[in-house]
């Protein structure tokens, strides 16, 4: 099925569908986005710089970025593990486990937020024992990490699962017939096939974690310079009607998101290219 240019295409509806798409996108996406950059420019360069490099802002970047990176890394490890177990093994409760993976994605962020707080606070079923061991989770940085791991879990699993499913067993058999041990087969044949998808999942989880608000603001305690994530700092500035400051921070976040999105697209193209090399 060759795709032809609009002028050559037989199917009708290009004008209408393109028109609707562009109009909607422009209205709903582009115009709002541009207001951010417009508004933050009202600060002027030095004002802008002051806001985005204030100690509070820097602390929030460190927390948001650091915790998101760590959480995505944890999800990378556990996500690949979960995907492997779900695809390769048969065991009772397998369907249930598969459905549970989607829960963090389907649950509203506010619900995740209060639920995690209940579990990890001092009176919580996990928080209590952990605090007695000396680790405070809720209202401390580890709480932020826990929340971000929670919401990022589905991304790696769901990215890796299809790849594992499509993996041709013949290659593993060939490796075995050629004399590779099971571990050698996994390391040399299976892992390279899975890496692009795993990295895609990692990037998705990381991007999601960076912007996450609802599930974090309950468990973090929102203490400035300690457990305040960047989205919350933006929210605080908005509540104080410091629009220029809020938009400056938002501009920084948007630029980072944009870079991430580009990297993600590259990754996905690389994945598709590898899959096509059959």
């Amino acid at each position, binding site marked *: 099925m060759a795709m032809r240019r609009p002028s050559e295409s037989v199917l009708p509806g290009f004008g209408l569908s393109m028109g609707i798409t562009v109009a909607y996108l422009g209205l709903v996406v582009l115009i709002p986005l541009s207001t951010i950059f417009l508004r933050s420019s009202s600060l002027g360069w030095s004002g802008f710089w002051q806001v985005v490099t204030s100690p509070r802002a820097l602390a929030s970047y460190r927390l948001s970025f650091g915790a998101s990176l760590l959480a995505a890394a944890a999800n990378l490890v556990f996500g690949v593990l979960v995907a492997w177990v779900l695809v390769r093994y048969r065991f009772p409760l397998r369907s249930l486990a598969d459905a549970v993976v989607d829960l963090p994605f389907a649950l509203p962020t506010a619900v995740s937020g209060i639920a995690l707080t209940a579990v990890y606070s001092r009176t919580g079923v996990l928080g209590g024992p952990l605090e007695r061991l000396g680790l405070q989770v809720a209202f401390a940085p580890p709480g932020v990490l826990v929340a971000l791991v929670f919401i990022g879990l589905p991304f790696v699993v769901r990215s890796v699962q299809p790849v594992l499913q499509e993996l041709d067993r013949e290659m593993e058999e060939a490796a075995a017939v050629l004399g590779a041990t099971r571990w050698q087969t996994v390391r040399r044949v299976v892992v390279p096939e899975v890496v692009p998808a795993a990295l895609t999942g990692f990037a998705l989880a990381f991007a999601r974690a960076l912007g996450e608000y609802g599930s974090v603001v309950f468990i973090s305690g929102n203490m400035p310079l300690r457990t305040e994530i960047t989205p919350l700092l933006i929210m605080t500035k908005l509540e104080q009607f410091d629009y220029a400051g809020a938009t400056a921070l938002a501009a920084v*976040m948007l630029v980072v998101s944009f870079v991430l999105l580009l990297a993600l697209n590259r990754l996905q193209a690389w994945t598709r290219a590898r899959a096509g090399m059959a």
Partner: protein
Amino acid sequence: MSAPRVTEDARWVRWTLTGTTLAFLALFVLLPTAAVFHEALSQGWRVFALALVDPDALSAVKLTLLTAAIAVPLNTAFGLAAAWCVTRFRFPGRNVLVTLIDLPFGVSPVISGMMIVLLFGTKGLLGPWLAAHGLRVVFAVPGIVIATVFVTFPFVAREIIPFLEAQGTEEEEAAHVLGASGWQLFLRVTLPNAKWPILYGVILCNARAMGEFGAVSVVSGHVRGVTNTIPLHVEILHGEYQFAAAFAVASLLVLLAGVTLVVKRAAEWKTHAALSATRAAMREQR
């Protein structure tokens, strides 16, 4: 008595990995979810029921339903238009368009809400115009609806686009040759074929629309009984230390999530079946 298949992992490996996975999922995901119901009932059934029939809670439910009822159909229509445009034609800038569609996924919900405020707030771009016409968007219901539309609009498109891409244009071209007009072949051929991915996208869009918190929080103004959706109402109750009530209302959303997951899996399975059938049919033709 023969050696185990070479592509199987050793038994201890299987047991360890499976055990770790189940423990991880139970601890990290199931436990917090169960905690919602545990906390909701911690003060008994009466408190639970009272929280749900409280007038503020009911108006929050109404607002949430209204928002979803507007956002989901709008975004579905957009998703269908975008999918048709992007998968049936090739044109310069197509990749940019696809990337733009994905944009809200990469933007923090707080920033999304903020953009609405910047546009429609009293000090915003359109602020004076709105004030002159006596219209309020921010800190009122329209703002909540717009914010929800923005945040959820990629969901339907993202599910339909890969499906239509994989399905190919043969059936539609056949319909065209047989004399069907554009709308006819869209309604009679494309839509029925894509009904499962559409359902999948709709259910995800709906879940997000009803559960959206960050963006709506910025725009809403938190006026009890007027501009609170269910998630915002939960936040207020939690902030007032009315924990049992907060979790009771939250349990509604957990139930919604459960329904979403069930429908999602059914739609996913059917989509996969439809695609496999197409692929098998295509192979036969070669």
